[in-house]
């Protein structure tokens, strides 16, 4: 949807800066997840420590974006599409900040897992990482392009991630039943999987907000796919 420009170029610029900030925040969080998972698959704890340290930048950017949104609400009193954009932006920055926290959780688990022998080859976990990475990217692309189709695709992919999480859970359960020494590592891997599943929930949350921003309809608690 091509928007006309605001009469106030400053207002236009403020909205564009929020959009750009969210894209950058999305790039940072996506990278954080990839790096956290890389630290696990390559058993490189230095990478994990860097993910934990870099989360500070994500938190700062989240706070900065939220403050900008509140400033626009107070000073510009946005309406219609601008109001929906700002409320969506506030929600998205919150989701992205939480995704950053999930990446930190994964990195912390990686630090522990890297200290012990690898329980099993990681096959489904990297698949989940690819899926949640593309969910974050697609949810933000749908936000930038007002693309309902792409947002709906993200909402549907969440179920695939849920299924993978359950599959990993079942598989790890058998490891634990067979060998009690594997319990600690299996539980840590379960938590990594659970964190990825929660990242997918946040990406879906972003897609839900995009649906609201474009249509004005709240779909957060509706099941997918959307009713035509």
């Amino acid at each position: 949807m091509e928007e006309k420009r605001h009469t106030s170029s400053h207002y236009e610029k403020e909205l564009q800066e929020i959009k750009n900030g969210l894209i950058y925040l999305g790039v940072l969080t996506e990278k954080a997840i990839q790096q956290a998972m890389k630290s696990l698959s390559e058993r490189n704890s230095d990478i994990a420590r860097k993910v934990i340290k870099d989360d500070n930048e994500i938190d700062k950017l989240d706070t900065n974006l939220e403050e900008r949104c509140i400033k626009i609400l107070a000073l510009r009193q946005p309406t219609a599409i601008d109001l929906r954009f700002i409320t969506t932006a506030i929600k998205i920055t919150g989701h992205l900040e939480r995704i950053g926290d999930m990446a930190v959780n994964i990195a912390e688990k990686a630090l522990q897992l890297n200290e012990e022998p690898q329980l099993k080859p990681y096959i489904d976990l990297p698949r989940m990482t690819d899926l949640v990475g593309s969910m974050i990217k697609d949810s933000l692309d749908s936000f930038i392009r007002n693309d309902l189709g792409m947002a709906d695709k993200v909402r549907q992919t969440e179920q695939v991630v849920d299924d993978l999480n359950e599959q990993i859970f079942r598989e790890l359960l058998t490891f634990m039943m067979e060998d009690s020494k594997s319990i600690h590592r299996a539980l840590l891997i379960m938590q990594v999987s659970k964190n990825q599943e929660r990242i997918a929930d946040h990406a879906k949350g972003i897609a839900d907000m995009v649906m609201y921003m474009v249509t004005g309809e709240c779909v957060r608690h509706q099941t997918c796919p959307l009713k035509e």
Partner: protein
Amino acid sequence: METNTIIKLKDVNFYYGQSRALTDISMTFGKNKVTALIGPSGCGKSTLLRLLNRMNDLIDGTRVEGEILFEDKNIYAPDIDPVEIRRKIGMVFQKPNPFPKTIYNNIAYGPKLTGVKAGDLDALVEQSLKQSVLWDEVKDILNKSAMNLSGGQQQRLCIARALAMKPDILLMDEPTSALDPISTAKIEELIEELKKHYTIIIVTHNMQQAARISDETAFFYIGNLVEYNKTEKIFTKPDVKQTEDYITGRFG
């Protein structure tokens, strides 16, 4: 006419000489609702407001087509007395325009002319000033000149003056544009109260004011009614792109 409708416009066109100011307007106004008319300057919103109590009759060379039904009667029918219409459909203007008389006589003047008995006037003045939330501020100075009141008080006095005529509808043409924020807030609060007993139709250039106080909002552009819906809908997800462009400041 539906029970909740107090005014109904059917295919209304309005002309200043050869120039058409309103085009095929059909809409209804809800009883005991606040309806805001918004749009850029020259869109016809004030013209429409003045049509509703035949104030445009006072301008030479104007012409109305279509019907404006109030209490099931076309207010432009030949047998309708415009003075009676203006009694039932009162008006408050942009700038407070009290008479150069005492506060008391500002209120009592109209009712006296329409035959209200002298013995009933005191109660009517008090009731009208209470309704316009001015009584406590002026009850001890009723015999002082209205011209000494502040702008906000003068505007509430004008509202009280309109209410004293026991209207069904109050038309307000940018009633707070000449007032400071506190006086504006008082008028807005008053409008909230008044809608319990009156139907209010207000023209405003202040988008936030329309959003705050009205139940329904109508957006006009170049004499056309572009969109008319619940205020909440208009300001969160309007159906028409032109409305969205206007209220978000992407117009022109």
